[in-house]
């Protein structure tokens, strides 16, 4: 026991001996602050409805940022008290706000971290140092950049799905199978698959390109030829693996369970791993590993020692950030997704039945742009033998298009009945249509402004009602959401009973105009 405690003491001493000089350097505290903020940001990303699948990518980019910071730890920074305090202000304005606001406010999600990073940069490096550390800032901006528009480019401009179908059919044909490519179909004697964009290598290519960008920024000594090689190998591998995947799917299309496995995220993940590993192998060939070691010039003889006040300032900042993070995560309220009440009482109408459902994704499950139906409720009303159905779908992060009610119908009546979009002052736009049995009224209830039918009207509302000067200040201080991208898609329906639809529409319209204000107030439930 005695020996043990002695040994313990010795190790403690040795540890302190190593640790004490570390405490004197600024980089230790900076690393701590950066890591804490990274943890906070990753926590936000993890709970974000749209970005949570991309968390690996965020982790990698944060790792890149911290690696760069570690490399530059010998740098001598001249900070002034002014820049430090300004940075502190910027940083805390951003992080002092409830976490659920980050998930609702896309504008904040994209630009909030940039402002915070600017503040952090001012604290850490000062005005002059921020220019030297532009790589850190660039990495952060690249992390927040919305890459999904590239998908659209690949899809519509490059006809990625046709190309993939042709190449995978050819590779099957090369292997001796009797495969034919027709437009976006790969046809085998045993069956055929249609290649949609989200089955191709487009997503793999974007993932590999993100990795490539990270490598290019983190390793500054690359030649242009190496960079070009990295980018082209990313595109090539992504495309090829996508083709292989489609070919495999075409072969197993008759075996349902196998097809389901390879088509699901599990099988797709295997292909993503395959693509990443082959990319890493190619990377290893393109950039020799010595590159990584050569950049590390460790000079232990001259540790940068900063004065006591600065260290105190950094310690206090770090502790505050840690406490804030703990407080924010501890007091986090989960997003109130069920703002639709169990019953909405309406004068003269008697509520008969309520049906509810939850979380259902629109469009295809792999579509990253799909808005998510957070909750849904159907209410049935009755007045003097007149039935009326009210269906509500609550959506977040939408741009006000793709009406969930119209998507269920194969032939889109909105296209035929463009003229049936009506406008009532003070209420907004709505669409009237009918099928064989029922007449419908449908529109999107906006948090602010009138109801809308399409994306242009929705965004118009956002710009006129949300982006006003009076709302900027509350937004800055974390009280409000600036651009409120929420929407309740509503559909009213009345059975026709063999009456002409134009005679039933007034019933729907009066019901709609009388109750719009009530329904709009549902949005306030979130706070």
């Amino acid at each position, binding site marked *: 026991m005695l020996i043990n405690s002695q040994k313990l003491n010795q190790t403690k001493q040795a540890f302190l001996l190593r640790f004490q000089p570390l405490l004197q350097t600024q980089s230790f505290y900076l690393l701590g602050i950066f890591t804490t903020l990274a943890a906070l940001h990753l926590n936000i990303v993890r709970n974000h409805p749209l970005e949570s699948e991309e968390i690996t990518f965020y982790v990698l980019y944060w790792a890149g940022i911290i690696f760069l910071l570690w490399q530059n730890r010998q740098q001598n920074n001249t900070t002034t008290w002014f820049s430090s305090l300004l940075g502190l202000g910027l940083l805390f304005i951003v992080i002092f706000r409830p976490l659920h606001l980050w998930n609702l406010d896309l504008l904040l999600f994209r630009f909030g971290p940039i402002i915070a990073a600017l503040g952090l940069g001012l604290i850490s490096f000062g005005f002059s140092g921020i220019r030297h550390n532009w790589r850190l800032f660039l990495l952060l901006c690249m992390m927040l950049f919305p890459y999904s528009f590239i998908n659209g480019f690949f899809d519509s401009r490059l006809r990625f799905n046709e190309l993939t179908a*042709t*190449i995978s*059919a*050819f590779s099957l*044909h*090369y292997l*001796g199978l009797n*495969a*034919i*490519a027709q437009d976006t179909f790969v046809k085998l004697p045993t069956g055929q698959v249609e290649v949609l964009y989200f089955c191709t290598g487009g997503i793999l290519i974007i993932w590999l390109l993100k990795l490539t960008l990270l490598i290019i920024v983190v390793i500054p000594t690359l030649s242009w030829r190496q960079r070009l090689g990295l980018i082209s190998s990313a595109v090539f591998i992504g495309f090829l693996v996508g083709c292989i995947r489609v070919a495999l799917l075409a072969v197993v299309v008759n075996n349902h369970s196998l097809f389901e496995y390879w088509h699901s995220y599990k099988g797709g993940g295997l292909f993503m791993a395959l693509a990443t590993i082959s990319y890493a192998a190619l990377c290893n060939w393109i950039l020799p590993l010595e590159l990584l070691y050569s950049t590390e010039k460790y000079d232990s003889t001259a540790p940068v020692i900063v004065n006591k006040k600065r260290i105190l300032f950094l310690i206090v900042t770090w502790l505050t950030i840690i406490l804030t993070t703990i407080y924010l995560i501890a007091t986090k309220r989960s997003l109130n997704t069920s703002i639709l009440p169990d019953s909405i009482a309406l004068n003269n109408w008697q509520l008969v039945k309520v049906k509810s459902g939850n979380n259902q994704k629109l469009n295809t499950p792999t579509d990253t742009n799909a808005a998510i139906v957070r909750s849904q409720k159907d209410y049935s009303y009755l007045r003097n033998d007149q039935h009326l159905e009210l269906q509500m779908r609550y959506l977040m992060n939408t741009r006000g298009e793709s009406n969930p009610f119209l998507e269920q119908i194969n032939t889109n009546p909105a296209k035929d009945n463009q003229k049936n979009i009506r406008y009532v002052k003070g209420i907004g736009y709505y669409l009237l249509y009918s099928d064989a049995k029922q007449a419908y009224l449908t529109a999107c209830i906006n948090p602010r402004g009138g109801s809308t039918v399409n994306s242009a009207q929705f965004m118009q509302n956002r710009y006129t009602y949300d982006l006003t000067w009076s709302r900027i200040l509350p937004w800055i201080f974390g009280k409000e959401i600036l651009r409120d991208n929420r929407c309740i898609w509503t559909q009213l329906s009345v059975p026709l009973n063999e009456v002409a639809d134009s005679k039933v529409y007034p019933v729907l319209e009066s019901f709609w105009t009388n109750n719009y204000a009530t329904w709009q107030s549902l949005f306030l439930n979130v706070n």
Partner: protein
Amino acid sequence: MLKSETFYNLNSMKTQKPEKLSKKPIEITEAVEKRSFALLRFLGYTLLIFSLIDYVSIFIPLHLTNPLWEFQAMAQMVDHVWSPLLGLTFIFLYNQTSIIQTKQVSILKFLSWFALAIGIFYLLLLPLGINNSLTLYKNINNQFANQQAQQQEQLQKVTEKLNGIKSPQELNNLANSLNLQNEAGSNQSPKDLKNRISQQIQTVAQNTSAAAKAANRQQIKNLVKDAVRINLGTIISGICFITIWNLTVWIRIIEKKY
């Protein structure tokens, strides 16, 4: 030789016009050698450009997974292989006095690797060629079988029709439609006529079937000839390109000194 003579003559015309008495045997100078090799290299690049245009025209429009198109494209590729082969050979033709610019080294190095890539590409075409040959063979046989079946069916129909005919008038009509000459006039009994018609039908059927068989044999012969030519051609061209890559190893190791 001819070129160098003219070169010499041109020189002499320019410089020594008054005295035309030089009747010495002509000696090839170093400069002449240099120029002729340069000409060959120039020709090599031209051939490469021509073959590039050829290959592009072969591949446009692309009908991948169509066996016939692939087979024909491969045939064309084998037919055109001499131009890149000669082009590459000419480009790498250097003699002792030649000087290679530093810029050229990277181009030559690229072309050397390019030869390897093309060689592998040609070798990879081999399984595809064999596959397509077999598919085409099957297609020809299927087509032949279909044709035979159709003819058999037609024959069946005509025979049935013949058996069903009762009146001599109709029989005569049928004989006329089949271009049977009624040699003995109308005094032939209907039964004889019937026999003659059926005989005639049999011989026609036999003739057409024999012709179809001969045509089928001819098709298969052509196909086998082409298949052997193309598949052997891909192997040989692949090996040629790889040999070019192998023999131009000097340019690939030169680079390291720079």
